């Protein structure tokens, strides 16, 4: 929409993020080449520009990193909690100091808008380290008995949608509880994890406590299967989660999985429409919908469907898609060509199955990976776009008449990660929240996160919780 408000470009300078032409793996406190010398390139999804060349971890590197983490474990776990806490507080502070740099870096490597990395990702990353820092010397009070013990070496595999935030979710509780870490970031977004390695060096973290292995799925699989890894933590797709669950079967490895979702966002006829529209937009278009807990299924009470859709379409027409480094950008680039292809194919299937597709007038940049915000109406529960996780800016709209029907439809999925409820009636919020089979229920809000608040799914959305007191359990022998 170009008529009423014309925005001048307001680009954040990229000069603050000094990206080296190449990076190594971070093992035992040093940046090193991959054992087999392999490298891969990481590109900016908004321009397809090559940002850097990264060493690609293989199974030999995994073994080296696990050995380093094992050596470091003895001393790290024996350190008084108060000392471990201070290292984590240092890390939290350095993240705050460097947050602008990291926000720019993340936007370049991931494609998400700077206003999200700056205002959502980075503050949460620092907050996670602060929160878990404070637990390190209070573990006796966490509810897992006196003197709970760490597990050992944690093998962690994280996705590309929130590269640094997922790192914080995994590393902060692991270190606070006395474990050491080998972390594999996603192949499309390795940079912020490598910058984090530098933060560990600045903080004076002992060598080997944190090891970072950029690489592909094969490195992740080798890490998870490594016999000397005691704890496996994974965030990513349900399909890979199932594979991991099979891999750890019959071992003593403790495992937590944060997997996919197909969140229902339920709007009742007495909902505050404007607030609900903001929540719906936030629920599915935040981070281009590349969010496991995205509210990708909108369930609208039939009587207000027309009014709500009209407001929603009007609102979508004001979203600004384009340069992620522009501070006014709402919708950035899709993370990779592969992901764009997946979104495109699912959307085409939605059309082929008879759902009605709508997007606001929206010009897409010529280079980079882009997908316009998309809305589907006439969607039934049988449609693939209502069942499969699309992981893109695509919202499927379904309707319901009664609260029972809303609950039944919301729960009609193998996933169980998130849900939203919009109504002014308190008893209805509580009654519906009670019946939803989902790990997080946002009522009259959506996509809120906090380090003190446990997050995780029911059913095929995985096991375990991250965040809060609950998040400690995954890293303790309880």
């Amino acid at each position, binding site marked *: 929409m170009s008529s009423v408000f014309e925005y001048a470009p307001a680009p954040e300078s990229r000069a603050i993020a000094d990206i080296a032409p190449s990076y190594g793996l971070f093992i035992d406190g040093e940046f090193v080449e991959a054992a087999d010398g392999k490298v891969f390139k990481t590109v900016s999804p908004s321009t397809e520009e090559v940002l850097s060349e990264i060493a690609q971890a293989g199974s030999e590197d995994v073994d080296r990193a696990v050995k380093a983490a094992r050596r470091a474990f003895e001393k790290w776990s024996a350190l008084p909690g108060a000392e471990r806490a201070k290292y984590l507080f240092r890390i939290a502070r350095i993240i705050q100091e460097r947050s602008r740099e990291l926000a720019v870096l993340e936007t370049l490597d991931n494609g998400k808008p700077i206003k999200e990395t700056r205002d959502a990702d980075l503050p949460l990353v620092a907050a996670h380290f602060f929160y878990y820092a404070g637990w390190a010397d209070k573990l006796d009070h966490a509810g897992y008995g006196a003197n709970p013990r760490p597990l050992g070496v944690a093998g962690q595999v994280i996705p590309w949608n929130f590269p640094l935030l997922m790192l914080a979710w995994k590393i902060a509780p692991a270190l606070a509880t006395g474990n050491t870490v080998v972390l594999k970031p996603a192949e499309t977004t390795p940079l912020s994890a490598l910058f984090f390695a530098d933060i560990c060096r600045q903080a004076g973290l002992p060598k080997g406590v944190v090891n970072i292995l950029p690489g592909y799925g094969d490195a992740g699989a080798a890490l998870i299967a490594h016999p000397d890894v005691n704890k496996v933590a994974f965030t990513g797709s349900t399909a890979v989660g199932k594979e991991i669950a099979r891999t750890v079967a019959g071992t003593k490895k403790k495992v937590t999985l944060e997997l996919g979702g197909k969140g229902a966002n339920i709007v009742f006829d007495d909902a505050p429409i404007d607030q609900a529209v903001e929540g719906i937009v936030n629920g599915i278009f935040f981070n281009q919908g590349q969010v496991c807990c995205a509210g990708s299924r909108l369930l609208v009470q039939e009587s207000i469907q027309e009014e709500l859709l009209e407001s929603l379409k009007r609102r979508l027409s004001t979203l600004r898609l384009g340069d992620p480094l522009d501070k006014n950008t709402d919708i950035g680039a899709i993370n990779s060509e592969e992901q764009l292809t997946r979104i495109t194919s699912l959307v085409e299937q939605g059309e082929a199955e008879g759902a009605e597709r709508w997007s606001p007038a929206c010009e897409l940049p010529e280079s980079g990976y882009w997908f316009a915000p998309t809305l589907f109406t006439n969607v039934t529960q049988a449609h693939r776009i209502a069942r499969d996780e699309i992981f893109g800016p695509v919202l499927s709209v379904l309707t319901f008449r009664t609260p029972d029907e809303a609950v039944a439809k919301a729960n009609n999925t193998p996933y169980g990660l998130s849900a939203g409820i919009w109504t002014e009636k308190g008893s209805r919020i509580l009654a519906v929240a009670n019946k939803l089979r989902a790990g997080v229920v946002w009522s009259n809000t959506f996509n809120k996160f906090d380090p*003190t608040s*446990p997050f995780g799914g029911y*059913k095929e959305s995985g096991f375990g919780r991250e965040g809060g007191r609950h998040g400690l359990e995954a890293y303790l022998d309880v």
Partner: protein
Amino acid sequence: MSEKSEQQRLSVFKTYKLYVGGKFPRSESGRVYEVSDSKGKWLANAPLSSRKDARDAVVAARKAFGGWSGATAYNRGQVLYRVAEMLEGRRDQFTREVADAEGLSKSKAAAVVDATIDRWVWYAGWTDKIAQVVGGGNPVAGPFFNLSSPEPTGVVAVLAPQESSFLGLVSVLAPVIATGNTAIVVASENAPLPALSLAEVLATSDLPGGVVNVLSGRTAEIAAPLAAHQDVNAIDLAGADEVLAKELEIAAADNLKRVLRPQPVDYAETPGIDRMTAFLETKTVWHPTGSLGASGSSY
């Protein structure tokens, strides 16, 4: 008449049956297997459950889940305590069965039965406390009310321990239902009779039909369809050996069941809360609080 009184009275045998959906069916397969005591003396023919029996039990457990998980914690505690009351009344029967099943002396078996009844009472008291112990408010950095509460994970398949036919059985079953899950229990393969008799107690204890379903037979044979079943949410592998446990854990990955692996447990010890939390989900609910603005009154 004196002739007759000299004759020993012929006792009445019991036909042991499965317990599914609050009813006592024979195995759908029509099969039974011989159960003998520790000295090899025949005790009874127990039903040899089939995969169809396992599937029927899942259907019953799913059907019962809404009501049982939706019952108040206080009500669940009352029902569990009622089970303990009924067990106390059948103390002698269970002492006999445990003595036969595990080759214990009468006094040792009685001690096991007492400990088992006490365990039920212990779990009865947990139903309305676990939420306070593992849930609570989260102090988020924003104007939100944020509360985490535990909820039952759903239908749980429980492979009862092989060696401890009664205390072990109750130690793995009670935590599953105390927290609001429904259960399909596979009894100890060689010593299933205490479990089948427990079903008779459950049936007369206000426990809704289907909340607990008891199957007897070959653990490996019954467990395989349960571990692979898409409508089972979790599995406790206590009664599986290492090889079977691994196989079942792989099958369970198909719908990401919660898996409790077999581990050495001293069932005589007072348990912790691990067996309850293993089958609980945490649900976190957020709501804006309408906090006070700078003007002092924005709500």
